[in-house]
């Protein structure tokens, strides 16, 4: 595998992914309940079509790219740091924790306290779960025990979320469970983009700080330490970075599972199985996958638009099962 992949230079991989990303972004802008030419809408931004493009579809596409990239990047860096191929924000319960934090803030009305409070709730929820996972990641050295802990964290977060929504006075709050569990980009506006953007960028910055540290870690902790890699700093950056970008994404769009699992796996051969190089390409790949899923939910004719997580889980869950079988085979 690596012999063939070495033939592909990194620049070529990036330009392919960039091309796909532009196409997916263009597709996300063109697809919707009403059909019109984008050129026409750009020419006349004050018309209805212009408003639909600029105020409804553009923020949606931008959020799709941001959240997708976040999930892909977080998945790649969690897999790299934990050296566990099944690690992913959704599977390990980080998204669930973020949703719980966001729900606490959103429905108590604390979200109106200051503009930043909703993403902050998501970030704190995510931070709590990531911290918990990394705390045990040393003791739970086996890949399977870590995943099982993630499953437990996920269930705990989900039941907390639904308990809280059921306790809400607003009778419609319960119906939002689907949103927090499955995620959606529908009818999000630029207000949402601006809310999520700073935290997402901060998280990306932390995760992409020093990609080569992950490569060194791939050689083992002692080797990495001997190469001068500060493991504690790397751990802190990974925890905070994941919490920031995943927390803010989930607070705005709900939790969308499996993007962070599928994308790093698909792209790993193209970057010669180097965890450091995987980060950047996984971010772009995640954005592409989420934009394509968001196009699909708008094309599938259902009376209510499908939630994004429905689609990503339909793709991701069989993939997950396949990986588990593969791991078993490798072990035996």
């Amino acid at each position, binding site marked *: 595998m690596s012999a063939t992949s070495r033939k592909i230079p990194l620049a070529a991989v990036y330009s392919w992914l960039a091309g796909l990303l532009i196409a997916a972004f263009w597709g996300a802008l063109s697809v919707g309940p*009403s059909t019109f030419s984008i050129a026409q809408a750009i020419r006349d931004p004050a018309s209805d079509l212009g*408003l639909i493009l600029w105020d*409804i579809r553009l923020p949606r596409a931008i959020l799709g790219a941001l959240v997708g990239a976040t999930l892909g990047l977080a998945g790649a860096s969690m897999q790299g740091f934990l050296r566990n191929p099944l690690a992913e924000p959704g599977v390990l319960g980080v998204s669930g924790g973020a949703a719980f934090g966001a729900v606490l803030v959103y429905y108590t009305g604390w979200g109106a306290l200051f503009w930043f409070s909703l993403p902050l709730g998501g970030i704190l929820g995510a931070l709590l779960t990531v911290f918990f996972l990394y705390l045990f990641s040393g003791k739970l050295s086996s890949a399977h025990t870590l995943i099982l802990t993630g499953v437990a964290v996920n269930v705990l977060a989900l039941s907390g979320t639904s308990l809280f929504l059921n306790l809400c006075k607003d009778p419609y*709050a319960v119906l939002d469970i689907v949103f927090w569990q499955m995620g959606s980009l529908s*009818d999000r*506006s630029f207000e949402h983009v601006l809310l999520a953007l700073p935290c997402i960028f901060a998280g990306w910055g932390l995760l992409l700080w020093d990609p080569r540290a992950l490569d060194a870690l791939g050689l083992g902790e002692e080797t990495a330490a001997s190469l001068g890699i500060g493991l504690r700093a790397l751990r802190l950056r990974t925890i905070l970075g994941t919490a920031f970008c995943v927390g803010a994404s989930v607070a705005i769009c*709900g939790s969308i599972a499996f993007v962070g699992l599928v994308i790093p796996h698909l792209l790993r051969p193209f970057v010669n199985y180097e965890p450091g190089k995987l980060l950047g390409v996984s971010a772009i790949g995640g954005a592409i996958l989420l934009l394509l899923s968001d196009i699909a939910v708008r094309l599938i004719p259902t009376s209510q638009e499908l939630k994004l997580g429905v689609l990503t889980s339909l793709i991701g869950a069989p993939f997950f099962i396949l990986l588990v079988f593969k791991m078993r085979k490798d072990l035996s």
Partner: protein
Amino acid sequence: MKRRSVFLFLALSLLLLFWGEGRTGLANEAARGPRRIVSLNYCADELLLQLVEPGRIAALTWLAGDTLGEAMRERAVALPRIRGGIEEVMVSDPDLVLAGPFSPRGTLRFLQARRIPLAMMGIPRDFEDIENEIRKLAQRLGAEDRGEIMIASMKEALKNFPGSEELPRKRAVFFQGQNYVPGADTFENAIMEAAGLENLAASRGIRGYGSLSLEALIQMKPDVLILASDQEKSRTVRAEVLHHPAIRKALPDLKTVVLPAPLLHCGSPASVEAVCILAQAVSS
């Protein structure tokens, strides 16, 4: 042991029977018709309270009193209110149970097996349906006179509104959370028509409740946007679409009317008030 519990049960029901008997200040009307009426339907609560003396009501739903005016609420709150489980209904010892399409299935099957009289309420789709519902229920309760008075006053009140004759009609959308809109054959549609509005969702071919995307809403350019108060107040993700900045930008002249939700939950004479609010808001 078994015999003892049967005895206990009998004693309890007898006690309840006498207790109920003692409480009912029998009006003339009540000489015929059921005397221990239990309602498992929120909309039936409202009609029941207006059609019979409170003494004939054994229980209302736990939601009773949310819709009505102050006087009616007091009457409702004074009565036992239940959630509709089998045990609760049996303890109320009913001789007539009013139920609707959303009443607990298990309870209804149990009542049918026990041959306890059951009256099913429909979901009115227009004001004529309401008339029929009232007439049917009044007959069952032996309160035909009160029923006819209710119907007559509702008809009288409805005469004050333009209805569908006046042209050109203003174009309206009743927008609910998560892009739900009522189309033709819904009670919301009847209210809009009675207030002299064109329901754009119905014109678009939506029957019953359908969904209308934000993009379609902007392109239809409605004059009036109707929101139910509970949806408008609701701070949930599904209600966020009602406050999307694109609506404000694309439709700066849009008139937004908020209707009190309790007037919309049930098709009943109280819903005339919703027509009134809507007609006034649109004409001003």
